[in-house]
């Protein structure tokens, strides 16, 4: 039975991650697309298999067991499309985020113009920028050649020259890249993505095409003031997929199953966030946070304009390794509430770096790992927010301006014993301001929906609207200056029953108001002392309708920017209190 893509009903999404491989089945149930079942197995791209197929098959087998549906045929291939006997699935979508990631050299003319944009482009996916070249480095061609040959990059992102701008300088840099690529063994030559002055396409092609593979995309810096990453982001994503296909057996086959649509998970996640931002149209942005072993991905979008950052250095794997090598653990200590000594912490981190996929068992270990996550998340958001167009400057720090919602996903969600821990991680790590809603992707299907959107947009729309996503609640985070204990916000909540509750919130406190998921209520806000609650200006209050969630309405008046108290005893006491307030233990 041939089924056109447009009419396809069922979809199997496969997510090959750094730690685990997951298969997720979506199908029409009661007239709507829903997430039906999922299977998970350790990823097998590493030793001893060095092939993703073992993990992919194991995860699909679990879906088969749960659903009773046969998806894999006797030839070990996915049955596409669905057969008359009910076996198989209509379409397959796939995403990938395995290691190693490609080493990238970025190239531009000026450090804070085209080179910066080339680096920002590299940031949109899983990669390690191992070196850069620009006019500012004052290297001659010989030195540039030697630099590239030593770095042996897998990819080169070459930017430079605004449209109708510089050409000779760009070509000089390209000449060095071409010579360096020529000198490397054929199988080690980097693939090149040219995203500079488009008038030079022909010359760049002539210069490079006989040496190595070169792709072209729109200029990332068409003018000094404008950065354009959208077009080149997809091209780079395809190059990363090709890198994995060339390095890891099984990836090409998975891409075939997905009809050439295999994408890096971060790209797919960005799509979902873009989609949500168009759906919400609330004049704020939407923020997505993916906390995984391989990277922390931050994807924000405003009305479809996406800004994403993939921070592999802050993924749990690399992050723990880096922290364990640090001399000064002061930053980590400030987030810790356990009694562990510095030596115990160092030993734990050093041993964790040897076995990054192990789980914390005791409360002390969990608290340490959550402290590590907070450090990594804070560092990622601090880097990310520098590029976000709408920010607040408070006490010397840049914070993200109000966004709504904040969607949290990632394989490290399994580190949270409950929703209260997840919410507190976001409040501490991201430190949202104003009014937002927190959504937890408890089934970790958001990136899969992003890649599925290209095949079946209706599926993505309908599943996003289901209980597959856990609404944690609405957060109100007033921003301003006042002494601890000073009342900074008065609010009145009116429930559908007509019952009202009034609350006065003090600086330094974290409060909640009950409002179950599926219910909405009216809240009247009156900020005091010119606190800003995101209603348009400092001191401005107003009414708004809020939707409920597992944790109700959370008022986080602990301050922005926020850090745990220096005194360990006080820290412990407060965190316990906040978790209790949020409904954790």
């Amino acid at each position: 039975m041939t089924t056109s893509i447009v009419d396809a009903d069922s979809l199997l999404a496969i997510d090959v991650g750094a730690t685990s491989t997951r298969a997720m089945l979506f199908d029409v149930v009661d007239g709507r697309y829903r997430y039906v079942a999922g299977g998970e197995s350790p990823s097998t791209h590493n030793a001893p298999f060095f092939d993703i197929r073992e993990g992919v098959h194991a995860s699909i087998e679990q879906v088969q067991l749960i659903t009773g549906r046969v998806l894999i045929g006797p030839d070990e291939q996915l049955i596409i499309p669905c057969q008359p006997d009910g076996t198989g699935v209509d379409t397959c979508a796939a995403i990938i985020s395995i290691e190693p990631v490609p080493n990238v050299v970025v190239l531009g003319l000026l450090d804070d113009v085209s080179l910066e944009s080339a680096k920002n482009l590299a940031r949109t996916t899983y990669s390690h920028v191992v070196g850069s070249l620009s006019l500012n480095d004052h290297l001659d061609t010989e030195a540039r050649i030697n630099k590239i040959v030593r770095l042996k990059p897998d990819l080169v992102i070459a930017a430079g020259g605004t449209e109708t701008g510089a050409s000779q300088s760009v070509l000089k840099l390209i000449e060095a890249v071409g010579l360096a690529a020529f000198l490397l063994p054929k199988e080690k030559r980097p693939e090149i993505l040219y995203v500079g002055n488009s008038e030079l396409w022909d010359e760049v092609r002539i210069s490079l095409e006989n040496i190595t593979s070169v792709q072209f995309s729109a200029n990332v810096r068409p003018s000094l003031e404008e950065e354009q990453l959208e077009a080149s982001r997809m091209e780079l994503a395809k190059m990363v997929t090709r890198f994995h296909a060339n390095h890891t057996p099984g990836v090409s086959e998975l891409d075939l199953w997905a009809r050439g649509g295999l994408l890096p998970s971060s790209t797919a996640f960005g799509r979902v966030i873009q989609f949500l931002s168009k759906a919400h149209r609330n004049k704020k942005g939407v923020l997505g946070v993916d906390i995984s072993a391989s990277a922390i991905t931050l994807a924000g979008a405003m009305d479809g304009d996406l800004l994403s950052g993939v921070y592999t250095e802050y993924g749990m794997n690399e992050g723990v390794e880096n922290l364990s090598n640090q001399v000064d653990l002061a930053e980590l200590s400030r987030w810790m509430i356990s009694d562990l000594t510095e030596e115990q912490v160092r030993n734990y981190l050093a041993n964790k770096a040897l076995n990054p996929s192990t789980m914390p068992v005791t409360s002390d270990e969990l608290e340490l790992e959550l402290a590590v996550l907070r450090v990594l998340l804070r560092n990622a958001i601090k880097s990310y927010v520098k590029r976000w167009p709408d920010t607040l400057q408070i006490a010397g720090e840049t914070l993200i301006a109000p966004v709504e919602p904040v969607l949290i996903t990632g394989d490290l969600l399994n580190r949270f014993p409950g929703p209260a821990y997840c919410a507190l991680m976001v409040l501490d790590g991201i430190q949202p301001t104003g009014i937002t809603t927190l959504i937890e992707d408890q089934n970790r299907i958001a990136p899969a929906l992003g890649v599925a959107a290209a095949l079946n947009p209706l599926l993505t729309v309908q599943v996003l609207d289901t209980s597959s996503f856990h609404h944690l609640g609405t957060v109100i985070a007033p921003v301003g200056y006042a002494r601890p204990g000073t009342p900074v916000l008065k609010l009145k909540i009116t429930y559908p029953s007509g019952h009202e509750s009034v609350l006065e919130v003090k600086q330094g406190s974290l409060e909640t108001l009950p409002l179950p998921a599926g219910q909405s209520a009216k809240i009247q806000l009156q900020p005091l002392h010119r606190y800003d609650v995101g209603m348009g200006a400092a001191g401005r209050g107003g009414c708004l309708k809020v939707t409920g969630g597992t944790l109700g309405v959370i008022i986080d008046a602990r301050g922005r920017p926020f850090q745990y108290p220096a005194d360990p005893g006080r820290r412990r006491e407060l965190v316990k209190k906040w978790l209790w307030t949020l409904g954790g233990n």
Partner: protein
Amino acid sequence: MLTLVSHILPLTLIRRERVLPMPGRILVRKGQKVNANEPVGEYKPHRDYSLVDVVRVLGVPVDRVDQYIQCEVGSKIAEGDVIAGPAGFTRKLIRSPKSGKVILTGGGQVLIEFDEQPEIIQAGFSGEITELLSDRGAVIETTGSLIQGVWGNGLIDSGPLVNLASSPTLELKLDQLDMSQRGSVLLAGFCRDTQVLDMAKQLPVRGLILGSMATSLKKMAEELPFPIILLEGFGQFAINASTYKLLCSHEQREVCLNAEKADRSKGTQPEIVIPLPASGTLSQPKAVEYLSQQQKVRVLHSLHARSTGVISRMKGKVTLPNGISTRAVEVRLDHNGEKIILPIENLEILA
């Protein structure tokens, strides 16, 4: 669930590929017997290039530069050889600063690749070369004891084993080291003193096997000129009973240390190999097995780290003491018979 296996084997077939990171030159032949630190192959990881701008240096017109270039593409040149010239009133010459090879000429420029010192990869243990892998490496085999560790400082060497660990937990102290241990591989329980490592360097020893080491010593250990292998990890852990017994039985025997950095993604771990003769056919130990009841396991990390035990029950999804929900098994610990629930990610199979 398939789980990696860590080996502590008294007698087994050990077969390892030693692969160059890039094409190079293989220095051994099939059937050759090699020692642990003998080079198996060499490669040039870094090449230096020089781009000589003949037009600019000699000051000659670009349309006539070819007549001044004195070397051809592919030709080898020695230090001091003339690349281009003479030109001008002063009969200026361009000479090569180092020996190398001419890669390209054109546009008035000459690209030269300079000879660099090659880097080698060593055998890793004493054995026989059983297969050559083109220009990429060789396969080495031996029979003997195999003990895998958790951390190494990246070096290779071998020497007679001297046991300074009268118990698996004993700390290695400065007064235990003396000149008689020069050239040996030392076994000790635990080390936390930088002076001890420094003394070992002064002797010098050929290697150090420790149960565990203070994290503060890690940086120093990485810079020492002899291999160090940790059997259990950072902190203070006893050498596990099987490993301790096996190593004690090999005192004074030649042990080979390949302290390569543990990389679970590549399946590499630091290893101790003690070559022993064997009669009969031995097979290679399995690299991976299914986690199942009665499997002997070791706790990798977290609660009861480095303890060994046996899986008494497969539990499915459980809630740990800290509230996390995850797949787990029940393990009966060897040292006290206690039964504990542990996440499957925290275990490795011990063979």
